[in-house]
Every structure is written in structure tokens, then in C-alpha cells.
């Protein structure tokens, strides 16, 4: 057996100088040979801490062993037992904080953990290329019940796939014209190609799931109708409503929320304007406010749209940056500038209603706040202005109210999210389950999927029990 390499098998990436002007995927993925070289590094630990730290508990050593043996079909089958969206997870999961963080190999001195995420991606991409989803067997048994899923993000897709596998009739309702939630309208092509998202959604449809787009629950169909027509429902409408800092100048032309900026680019293909009809500002100087994955995505998209200078303004320091470190490194390679410990205080008007600068103030870190992080406080007389024709606020999102405002019976938390039991997905109303960002607030793809998996089990239990009780009650 080859000697175990200390470091991860290198992976091919588009060169920064090239990729910063295109929207093609940055990371090119392993070849099967590279994957095998990486798979050899796995220690195949009996207690496998990686499994426990994965929100959907994938048998990680199992699929890695299959790669090592060159049996890609077996690897794909193992993955498929735990996740319906492996090609997506392999690309956007915060692996460094989950499976790879607890990898025993990575704990050894001078060793890097196994590149679990990249191996997952390899297997999933292989399956998308080589498997014919249309031949997946759908059970001919009579359906156990009928379930409505509201929202087609990772949480809704997961619950739908799992319930279809359990032989339920499942209809997913999506407000937009394309399914996928943030995977489709938020995360850019260069990190998650839409062709991959589309294929994985097709694989879920192949399980017998129906997806109806252009349906806004609460408007096109009311919750009352859903409750009458279905045995149970799962609400996974996400947390997509953008917050604004609300500082002077927010209404100026050139001030975007990250949601608008990224939706124009991803859902509406505005980076291909005028081939696609939806426009986006192509600016020279772009300032992005915030420090999460969303801020990185907006900044790197702006660069790809041709901006000369793109700066990220973040009120804390690199140590506290919430974005994935891989994305941070990619952004630095793409010449995104950082203004650490800085906060915007005003957007400047060019006199014609257009933005021409961002007035900022320097910050220092004071006492820790409720989140345990040291609270940034402004430093007196430290104002300065950054020239900008576009500013993008990526300071977080709130719960999506379209449905909730029409369903006042449903109990919410004090932050406006749905109150649901994390172990079951049950809400305050029997038969109504919920999960994903609309329960947790903005989180991750894999946590949203985990919530879907938990709820699928519980929904099955609920419907089976209900069918056994003689009196038919409303959901």
C-alpha cells in the first residue's frame, strides 16, 4: 500500500487570473485516480467520529472504502442512502467545521484531515454522469398518504425525497419559477453550477416527487386548503427576507441587498445580460458590507462582472469572519480587498440619486456580547470614505413572511421563526411540520437537509398513527 501522504491530495482549480472574469466553477474536482489516492489516506476508524459530526450521518468510511476499491457504484449507493443532494453537499458544506474537523488523521501531528467533501463530490459527480435516474424503481404499491412540502430548498427537497422513498405521494410547492431555493437563486455558479442543482433535483423527481413552481402558499393556495387536502405538510420556506442597516442613503440607486444582487445574477442570469433580459449594474468600485459566505459570493460575483476594485467592509477581524475559510482564500486570490474592523455609517449621494461613496468608521473590539464574540465599538473621529458606485449589504436575512402572515395560528419564536421541535420538526399545529432556515434562522444546506430527514421519519409516524385512529380529523 502506498504511504499515507501528510497532506490532502491536491485538487485542480481554475487559476485566479482566469476565473475572476468568468462564472465557471472554481474547483474542478478530483479524477478517479486522484480520489483513490486520497481515499487511501482514510484510517477507516471503527468509531468514525466523522459520521457523528455529519448532520445527516453519512457512512463516510464506507463510501471512502468503496472509492479505494474502485467501486464507484457502491460508493454512490452508500451516499444515496443518506443524502439526496451529495453533489451539492460535496461543494458547499462547511466540511472543515464538521466531518473533516474531527477526522482522526487530521488530529495527528503535521497531518491534514481526509478531503471528505471533495471525495463526496467525486462520487456524486460520477453518479450524475453515469446513472440513469429515469430507471429508478418507483413502487407500484398504493400510496400511504399525501404530503405537501412548501418551499423547494435543500430542506424541502430532502423531506420530499425521503417521503417518496417511504411510498408517499409528495407535492412540493415553490413560489419562484425554478426549484432549489438558495441553491438556485443564492449560491453563484462558480461555487455551485446550476446544472448540478438541476440534475440532483431531477433525481428527486425521479423518486416520484412532483414539484409545482409558481405557487405561493398563502396566496395561490391557502394553508386551509393545504390542511384539508393533505395528510400532513412540511414548511421549509427559508429565511430569505433581506435586512438593511438602515443608514442614510439606503434608497440611493446603486445600493443593493445581497439577495437582490445574487438573485439577479443566479436566478435571472443577469451576468449574461443582454442575452438574458434582467439587467445588473456593472460597476467600477464595489463595496460589500458583511463577512459571511453571502458577502464573499456577492464580492466575487461583482469582480466577475468586471469591477476594478471590490472591497469587503467587516466590523470585526479575520479571526471572527463567519465565512468558510476556503472561500476567504479564494476571494483574496481574486484580489478582493478587506477593510477589517470597519462599519459603514452613510451612503453618499452624487447629487442625482446615485451612490458615489461609502462613509465608514473604524471599530475596535470591546467586551464580549451575548454571542460570546467581542462587540465592535466605533473609534471616534476615524471616519473615512471609500469610493463606490455599487454597495451590497450582506448583513443577514430574516424569516420569509409571505406564508406566515397568512397563518397566524402557527406559533413563532420571538425572532419571527417557526417554533418547531428540533428532534421531530413538529410545530404548534398537529400535522404541520417545519424545518430549515425558517426554523433555525440562516444556517447551512446540510442542517436544512438534516431537519428534512428528521421530519420525514416523524411525518411517516404521524400519518401512520392517524390512519389507524377511526375518526378522521383535519390535519
Amino acid at each position: 500500500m502506498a504511504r499515507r501522504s501528510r497532506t490532502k491530495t491536491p485538487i485542480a482549480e481554475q487559476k485566479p487570473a482566469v476565473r475572476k472574469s468568468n462564472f465557471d466553477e472554481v474547483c474542478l474536482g478530483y479524477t478517479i485516480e486522484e480520489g483513490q489516492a486520497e481515499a487511501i489516506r482514510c484510517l477507516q476508524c471503527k468509531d468514525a467520529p466523522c459520521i457523528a459530526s455529519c448532520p445527516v450521518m453519512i457512512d463516510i468510511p464506507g463510501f471512502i472504502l468503496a472509492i479505494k476499491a474502485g467501486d464507484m457504484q457502491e460508493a454512490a449507493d452508500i451516499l444515496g442512502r443518506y443524502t439526496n443532494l451529495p453533489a451539492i453537499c460535496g461543494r458547499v458544506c462547511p466540511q472543515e467545521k464538521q466531518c473533516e474537523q474531527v477526522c482522526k488523521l487530521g488530529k495527528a501531528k503535521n497531518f491534514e484531515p481526509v478531503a471528505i467533501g471533495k471525495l463526496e463530490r467525486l462520487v456524486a459527480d460520477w453518479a450524475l454522469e453515469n446513472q440513469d435516474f429515469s430507471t429508478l424503481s418507483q413502487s407500484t404499491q398504493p400510496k400511504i398518504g399525501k404530503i405537501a412540502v412548501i418551499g423547494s430548498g435543500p430542506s424541502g427537497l430532502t423531506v420530499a425525497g425521503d417521503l417518496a422513498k417511504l411510498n408517499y405521494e409528495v407535492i412540493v410547492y415553490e413560489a419562484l419559477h425554478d426549484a432549489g431555493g438558495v441553491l438556485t437563486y443564492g449560491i453563484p455558479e462558480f461555487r455551485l453550477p446550476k446544472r448540478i442543482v438541476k440534475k440532483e433535483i431531477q433525481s428527486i423527481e425521479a423518486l416520484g416527487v412532483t414539484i409545482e413552481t409558481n405557487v405561493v402558499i398563502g396566496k395561490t393556495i391557502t394553508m386551509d386548503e393545504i390542511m384539508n387536502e393533505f395528510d400532513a405538510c412540511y414548511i421549509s420556506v427559508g429565511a430569505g427576507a433581506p435586512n438593511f442597516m438602515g443608514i442614510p442613503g439606503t434608497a440611493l440607486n446603486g445600493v443593493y441587498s445581497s439577495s437582490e444582487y445574487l438573485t439577479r445574477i443566479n436566478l435571472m442570469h443577469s451576468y449574461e445580460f443582454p442575452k438574458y433580459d434582467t439587467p445588473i449594474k456593472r460597476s467600477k468600485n464595489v463595496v460589500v458590507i458583511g463577512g459571511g459566505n453571502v458577502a464573499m459570493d456577492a464580492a466575487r460575483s461583482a469582480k466577475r462582472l468586471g469591477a476594478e476594485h471590490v472591497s469587503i467592509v467587516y466590523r470585526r477581524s479575520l479571526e471572527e469572519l463567519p465565512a468558510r475559510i476556503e472561500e476567504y482564500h479564494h476571494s483574496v486570490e481574486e484580489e478582493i480587498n478587506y477593510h477589517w474592523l470597519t462599519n459603514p455609517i452613510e451612503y453618499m449621494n452624487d447629487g442625482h440619486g446615485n451612490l458615489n461613496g461609502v462613509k465608514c468608521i473604524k471599530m475596535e473590539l470591546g467586551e464580549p456580547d451575548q454571542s460570546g464574540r467581542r462587540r465592535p465599538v466605533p473609534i471616534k473621529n476615524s471616519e473615512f470614505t471609500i469610493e463606490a458606485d455599487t454597495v451590497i449589504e450582506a448583513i443577514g436575512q430574516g424569516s420569509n413572511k409571505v406564508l406566515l402572515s397568512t397563518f397566524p395560528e402557527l406559533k413563532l419564536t420571538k425572532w419571527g421563526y417557526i417554533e418547531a421541535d428540533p428532534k421531530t420538526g413538529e410545530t404548534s399545529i398537529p400535522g404541520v411540520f417545519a424545518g430549515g432556515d425558517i426554523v433555525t434562522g440562516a444556517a447551512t444546506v446540510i442542517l436544512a437537509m438534516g431537519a428534512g430527514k428528521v421530519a420525514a421519519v416523524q411525518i411517516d409516524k404521524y400519518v401512520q398513527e392517524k390512519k389507524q385512529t377511526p375518526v378522521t380529523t383535519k390535519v
Partner: protein
Amino acid sequence: MYKITKSEQLSENEYDFWIEAPRIAAKAQPGQFVILRINDNGERIPLTIAETDPSNGTIRLIFQVIGKTTAELSKLNTGDSILDLTGPLGMPTEIKNYGTVLIVGGGVGIAAIYPIVKGLKQAGNRVITILGAKTAELVILQEECRYYSDELIITTDDGTLGVKGLVTEAMEQVIAREIINCSWAIGPSMMMKFCTLTASKHEVPIYVSLNPIMIDGTGMCGGCRVTIDGNIKFACVDGPEFKGTDVNWDEFISRMKQYTDEEKQCLTADQKVQVTPHG
């Protein structure tokens, strides 16, 4: 796909479509709108639901050709289909018996006031309607509005129909002669701004329907944001109807010009595509 069951040209730039959309037809209330996309490369654009026929499962949209999407839409015929149609979106108008109401529609805004006129009449109000346009042929839905109004006043800029002049002058005259309990104005931003000034001068409550640039229409992008009484609101979910006196008009009007350059480019690109076959 959503089939166009009837299409008609109303004037040089205005079109009247009935489209199959049973779910929307069953739910739509006055004041609500849809978002549509014609084809895969298309933009999502909002249009007010002018009327519904729930028994046929169809909705009526009346639109003016402004840029590329509305131009493309106008070229579709009965039997053609559009790719996506979502709705009904937005908060409905509060329809109840106010007493005497004054409703002002300008240009293609008449399409948006028609369901409100109808709703308020059916709720038992005394309805006075003012329709305004540049010239006679742009005064759409005259007969429909007349049918549901106790009084119908028409104004045109050039005097080709009704009274020569502006809708605000007609408003002044109505307010001078009788007590108006509530009013609505829908049309170009400038018109709505001046109708608001006129109504508020006489302490008549006034509602307007804002038409900012939208994308999703479900409160998710913040592109349609407007400042209402000093607070950021999203017109697609909090509106589109707001109290006219609460709207920051200058800001609203300025934000409508965000994409003027890009939209011109889009329209020219489109025209180039269309002229190529001829050489």
C-alpha cells in the same frame, strides 16, 4: 405554461389579454398583481390583475408597452402561451363601505383602478371615478368603469375627450362640491404624487399603488423597497397600496430610473435581433 385565451390591442401601445390561470382567478382580490415571465431568457415583470373570470379560470391583464418584455408580450396572440405566471401577489385593497369615494386612474393605471371601482361599488359606496389620459384613445375601460361608477369624469391633456386638463383639477372640483370619505389614485408616479398633494390639502385620505421595479414579488430580494413614513417597506408584500401621504415620492421616482441605461441597451439588442433577417 399559461395560455392566452383572448388578446386585443386597445390603443397604439396598450394591450388587453385574458390568460388561463385558474388558481389565480379563484383567489385574486382588487389591488393584487401577478408576476410573469414570457420565456427562459425573460425578465420577471409585475402586472395588475384587472379582472378575473373564476368560472372560466382566466385573468385579465392590461399593459402598456414600455420596454423589451412588454414589447414581446404584445406580440403574442390568442392561443400562444407564456412560461410562468405567479400570483395573486400583494395585499388586497381594503374594500368596505366608506360612504363616498373618489377614484382616479391615469393612463394604464386605469387597469389597476378598475377592480377597485368595481369592488367599492359592490360594497355599497357612492363611487365617483376620474379617468385621465393624454388623449382620447388612451382612455381605456371607459364603459366598464362607467358601469360601476355613480359618476364618471374624463380628462384628457389635449381635450379630445371629456374635460381638457389634468385629473387633479377634476379632483379639486369634486372635493369642492361634496364630502369625500376616502380616495385612490393609480397612474404615473408624478400623477400619484400630485393627487396625494391635492387630497391631503383637503384632508381627504388617499391610497396609491406603487409600481417599483420588482424581481421575485415575494419579499425576498428587497429590490422593490420604498420608504413609507420613514420606514423601509417592500412594495410586493407590504403593498403595493400605501397611504399617499406616507410615501417618500422623490426617492421613489428616482429609484424607478435605476436601469434606464441597461433597459435601453436591452431593447436595442432586441431590435437588432429582429432586423437581422432583413439584412
